[in-house]
């Protein structure tokens, strides 16, 4: 179905045409359901609170609108779907059963995220694999860029002694122990400020 409850703010001219039909269809479904469920009535729908209904509706998406959670969708059709949830809850259905029911009726798109099976597995596999591959490439690149000792030694001769680059991490650490480099940074900052304001 291609109609929308919440009209896309940037493409606002997709008018909903099927909403009325959907509501009609829903009324029929509800009529059938209520006749079946009258056998297994466990509680009156009025004892189910709105919060209980919303707790389930929150996990579902409006079957006809795009990307609109069922608990906040303002259309009549969605209000009726929430009533359907209320009815199901009053019959003792669990939240999981109601979700399964909605999936059977309207397809996987009513779920907030694709169920992890079949093609959908790609949703959950591709991002972590890509990120891990990126992390691996980055690690390799960093290691390749890591300064070899001899280059560092020659580099040291080019820069002032105060900021001489130790040739390995160990030496860097020991150098840092000897002169706290942050203090050194502050000293340099103060020095520069003094100079520039003279």
């Amino acid at each position, binding site marked *: 179905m291609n109609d929308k409850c919440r009209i896309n703010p940037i493409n606002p001219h997709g008018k909903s045409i099927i909403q009325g039909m959907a509501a009609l269809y829903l009324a029929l479904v509800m009529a059938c359901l209520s006749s079946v469920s009258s056998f297994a009535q466990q509680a009156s729908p009025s004892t189910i609170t709105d919060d209980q209904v919303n707790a389930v509706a929150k996990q579902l998406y409006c079957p006809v609108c795009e990307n609109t959670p069922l608990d906040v969708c303002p259309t009549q059709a969605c209000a009726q779907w929430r009533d359907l949830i209320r009815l199901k809850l009053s019959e003792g259905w669990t939240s999981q059963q109601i979700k399964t029911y909605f999936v059977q009726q309207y397809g996987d798109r009513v779920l907030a995220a694709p169920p992890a099976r079949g093609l959908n597995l790609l949703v959950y596999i591709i991002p972590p694999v890509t990120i891990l591959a990126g992390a691996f490439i980055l690690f390799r690149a*960093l290691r390749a860029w890591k300064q070899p000792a001899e280059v*560092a030694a020659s580099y040291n001769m080019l820069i002032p002694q105060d900021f001489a680059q130790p040739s390995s991490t160990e030496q860097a650490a020991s150098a840092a122990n000897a002169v706290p480099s942050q203090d050194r940074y502050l000293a340099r900052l103060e020095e520069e400020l003094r100079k520039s*304001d003279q």
Partner: protein
Amino acid sequence: MIANLGFGALVISFLVSVYGAGAAVYGARKNAPTFVDSARGAMLLTFPLLTISAFSIIYLLATQHYEIAYVSSVTSNSMPLYLKITALWGGQAGSLILWSWLMSAFASAATLRNWDRDREFLPWVIVVSLVTLAFFVGMSIALENPFARLWQTFSGEVITRFLQPAGAIAFIPRDGNGLNPLLRHPGMVAHPPLLYLGFVSFVIPYAFAMAALITGRTDDRWIRLTRRWTVIAWLFLSLGLILGMWWAYDVLGWGGYWGWDPVEIAALMPWLTGTAFLHSVMIQEKRGMLKQWNMVLIILTYDLVIFGTFLTRSGVLSSVHAFSQSAIGPVFFAFIGATLIASLSLLLRRWNDLKAEAQLASWFSREALFLINNLLFVGIFVVCLWGVIFPLISELVTGQKMTVGPAFYEPATGPLWVALVFLMGICPLSAWQLSTYRTIGRAAWKPALASLIVPIALLIAGIRQPGALLGFWVIAYAAFLSLYQLFREALARYRAHNDNLLISMWRLIGRNRRRYGGLIIHVSVILMALGVIGIELFQTETQGTIAPGQQLTLGSYRIKFDSLATFDTPDGGLNVARAVVSIYKNNAGNPVPQLIGTVYPRRDYYYESQQPMTIPGVYSSISGDDIYVVLVDWQSITSQGATFKIYSNPLVNWMWLGGLVLLLGSLIAAWPAKDPDATALARRAALSRREA
């Protein structure tokens, strides 16, 4: 008449763009400066031409020329003037004109700069800008003409054409369809232009990058030249996103500001790669590394800008089948493909010129940390891109549409966001090439230790959620580190000069605007992170149907339904149901709840578009918490009951405050410094004078 003028200007600007691009290529290839100057003239001419075009539409919108299809689709008699004007971006055709108009403004501004020192870039910057512009203007002319008129054919059918079809007569509706009610909001007045400004301004650094690749001047010159453009583009994109969030919070009645909707993600993706770019260019400037990667990032950002426009314009999001039905989708797709292939082949051609000049000194140097930052931003981008594309693939393969919502994005990106905030605390402490884990540890341990106070205090206050404790700790730690640096450095200056501490800080910021502007932006991100935690982890809600005088309870708040009135607005455009709701708060030690405010949640029903709008009533407290009341339903006057949904949104206002601080930080970072070359010359001159 005006429509013809506007359309004529549009066609001329297309021709001028195509000519300018050709002249620039010819001038650069044959080394003919007259042609380059002519191309520059063409570039500058597009702006007044598109201004004529845009103002023609605005005039038609404001004066209710309903014979124009676009005007009748987005305006109506009952709309106030300011909404008629902003209807320029209320629909497809107008939005594309706005895009082109802003694009020509930015590209012209870039063309007007002083090019003496980098003249070889000029023709290629013009080519890239004009090709992009010609694409958008061409699309407006051929596929989405905002000046097309309505005609009634002999058979009575109403069709849309620019020129009068044979046998058809003009069709002039007496009233228009009106703007989508969701767009009638101050946030929507500013959100699309700002977002588009962000989009188009990222074209400028991309154009310079391509110019650098084409001319082979692959040093960091192009980055230095576009540094401020990038910050400004980033600022506009950020503000566009924040205003969009504010609009969603204020209009949709969903209780939140971000729903991980594909339209939102379309605008977030270029922001993610753009932010990564903003950081990684510094590595190239300081260390001569990552040249290839920066090219990849800016190419990606440019194509994501076009892709974002494509996603929201082609209808592909509602269904992949809408994509093939509209002509605009395939054209966009082809353009994205062509620019991506062209840019990447240019990059490959210069790959070896872009080898790193320096090597990595330490795993904890700033360049290494920035690379991790890039990995995280790109990681979030991959999650977003895949989340947006997957439903399309699924629909193509299985025919079934999928929803990829917060249930996917939040767990997938959450840890990456937390890691980013964590990194944000350390990064500014690290030094280029030098820092090791010991130097960073030494600089960071005091504020890091102090930040532990926050989770401990929260534990004592009774908060037990591990996610919340971790989140608040990371935020506190990043905040303490950022502020510690700012104050420590200001203090150092204060000691050196003995003037006022505030003046010291002000001067310090002035000395290195980029660094301190960046630090202030970091603080703004911390503030926004508070808003995110508030909504994500502490939002509570309840819903109930109550009669006037009755109350609903949510936490320490009580919400009393006072009255409800339904009425038509004087212009007859909409029917309003407006409730009056008082909010009380239970205070410790006081048995009587105290009245803290009154809100007016509404349901507006627009007759012309037959669309309901849920406008929440929001009470904001000083601590940044919101009580957000939505009128869900109401019964007839006789039974007098109404259903309210109430959200308590702790800390949410820190989000908007963070937005303001972000604006401040970006302005500081982008504020024009004196020409760096001129400053260097002046300094040298002063030195030589002193020596003399």
